[in-house]
């Protein structure tokens, strides 16, 4: 029981569903989401981000700069300092005289790609491992849980740097590193959920009907994991984006000249006193995006389970 505001357990009124009959839990959640202004704003923002990422090319053509083009006439002072926002560069330039606006736009692409890909990869691994740990009894659980303990016991940032320094940085490595250190957390959640779902009567019902383990796992258990996993994914995406920024700060991020918000912010830290715009705009993009994903995650959670408060996933 987590509802505090409404009713004590025995008295939760039957909600009339005559207006919503026949709609799937997803449709219901969607209906609730549409009523949530915060979710709408965040959703719209994320869609916008997606569009910006998708149309980065045309947009940059419109603006007139490519993301790697170094404007050595108006883009830098003779001393090599970035140029402030002006008619040439609406949001100013970076340390190599490149247009910050265009780079922020292109950065959307990388940050989103890394964030989403890493989150999705982590979730996929986590779900599979967690499902196996939770479903197949104590012996398998013990082994798999130990494995997750090992991963969670790693000083992950240090290990990430070490790993990247050994294998060399690339987008793929970065996604892999983030996923590698995130899946165990997902795995734990899924394992916990699976353990509790396994005790549900409908699983027993399926067993009594003679359903196979595989059928039970995929037909009965998995659909019930979608909601928590979906929520966790929306929360993992911003974490991955910030993680990418941190890796860039530590010098093991995306390979230049490809812009990501992370490596822009990281580059900007040397000149933020002279060129606030260089830190501010990618910073705003990063914070707004993580905020949007986080708030949307909360809203999705609320929508999927209106009786659950906005809990933070552990």
């Amino acid at each position, binding site marked *: 029981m987590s509802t505090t505001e409404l009713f004590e357990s025995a008295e939760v009124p039957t909600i009339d569903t005559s207006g919503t*009959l*026949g709609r799937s839990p997803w449709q219901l959640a969607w209906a609730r989401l549409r009523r949530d202004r915060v979710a709408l704003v965040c959703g719209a923002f994320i869609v916008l981000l997606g569009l910006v990422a998708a149309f980065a090319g045309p947009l940059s053509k419109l603006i007139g700069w490519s993301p790697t083009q170094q404007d050595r006439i108006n883009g830098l002072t003779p001393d090599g300092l970035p140029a402030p926002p002006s008619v040439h560069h609406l949001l100013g330039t970076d340390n190599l005289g490149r247009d910050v606006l265009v780079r922020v736009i292109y950065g959307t692409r990388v940050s989103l790609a890394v964030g989403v890909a890493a989150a999705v990869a982590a979730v996929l691994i986590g779900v599979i491992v967690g499902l196996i740990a939770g479903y197949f009894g104590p012996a398998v659980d*013990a082994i798999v849980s130990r494995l997750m303990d090992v991963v969670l016991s790693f000083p992950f940032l240090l290990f990430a740097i070490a790993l990247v320094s050994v294998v060399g940085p690339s987008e793929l490595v970065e996604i892999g590193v983030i996923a590698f250190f995130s899946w165990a957390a997902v795995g734990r959640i899924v394992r916990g959920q699976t353990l509790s779902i396994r005790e549900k009567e*409908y699983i027993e*019902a*399926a067993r009594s*009907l*003679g359903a196979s383990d595989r059928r039970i796992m995929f*037909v009965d258990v998995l659909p*019930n994991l979608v909601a928590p996993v979906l929520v966790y994914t929306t929360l993992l995406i911003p974490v991955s984006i910030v993680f990418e920024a941190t890796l860039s700060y530590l010098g093991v991020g995306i390979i230049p000249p490809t812009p990501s918000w992370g490596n822009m912010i990281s580059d900007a830290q040397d000149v933020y006193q002279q060129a606030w715009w260089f830190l501010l705009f990618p910073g705003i993009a990063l914070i707004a995006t993580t905020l949007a994903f986080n708030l949307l995650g909360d809203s999705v959670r609320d929508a999927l389970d209106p009786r659950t408060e906005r809990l933070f996933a552990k």
Partner: protein
Amino acid sequence: MIEDTPQPPAGTRPADDDLVRATGVVKYFPIRRGIIFKHEIGQVRAVDGVDLTVRRGETLGLVGETGCGKSTLARCLTRLYPLTAGQVVFDGTDISTLNRGQLRPFRRDVQMIFQDPYGSLNPRRRVGSIIGDPFAIHGVADGAERKRKVQELMELVGLNPEHYNRFPADFSGGQRQRIGVARALALRPKLIVCDEPVSALDVSIQAQIINLLESLQDDFGLTYVFIAHDLSVVEHVSDRVGVMYLGRLVELAEVDELYRHPHHPYTVALLSAAGTPDPNKARKRERILLTGDVPSPIDPPSGCRFHPRCPKARDRCSVDDPVLMPGTDRRPGAEPTGDGHVTACHYPVLPGEVLAGRT
């Protein structure tokens, strides 16, 4: 084993009239501790040696308090649990040693209806797919045929077939229980084990489901094992009733016989404790208040398990474990009664006897 010679209400019945024969059913749950290497530190003796026969076409009621093992027994009969010891013969086949694959045909013949109308239906699946599960799992019907069959079932249990695509959340508790009934009915099983099917429902809805179950039994010649803690419900639906206490069957009889002439002190106490929706009866009723609570099934009392709470307990009861015996006469060579009323008690309650502890 139960001496089973008596006459059922509708004439004699042949020997193969027993759908289920359970002999010496034992189910212990190990209590494990440990991080890597689990080791057993004890056992929950959920069911500890039960003999039981379910006759074709009857409703066998099982009553008892929390932790008496009635639900575990039900899951042993349906082989949802492997037995620790004992044997269950279903329709002539010993199912107690079959593996999962071998059990599959058996799964078609035995179905369960569960207690929790919320927990027993997967909230993420459509009703049509839930009811169609038995067809899908056993590969009986596909596509349009499955849909037609499911809709027939829905109609049968009083659900609107058009609601095929709805989700469990769209239904009230009573309607959900109908979904559970429809699912259980899909493969036309021989036996349905109902585990507290109406306990979670409000009285008015409870009556709907009981009526439904009864009419389905008539229409399809079903056999029910009906588990409940509500004595009046069991009285209403059952042909015979078994009373369980701490993993044991302590009394079994035809329903009217049991309710009118309970032999076991526990049954007597249980019946007297049950509420009655009749103020006059309530005022007149004399209650037997048992002392204490049900002991832990991890470490059950020696001898008769009821003896620490029994108003009639004597020294022998803490030593000698009583077995089910017909009648109330415990003298050697006593004539066995023929009504199938058996009791596991050294000192059964005689008609008219007043038990101590009444208020």
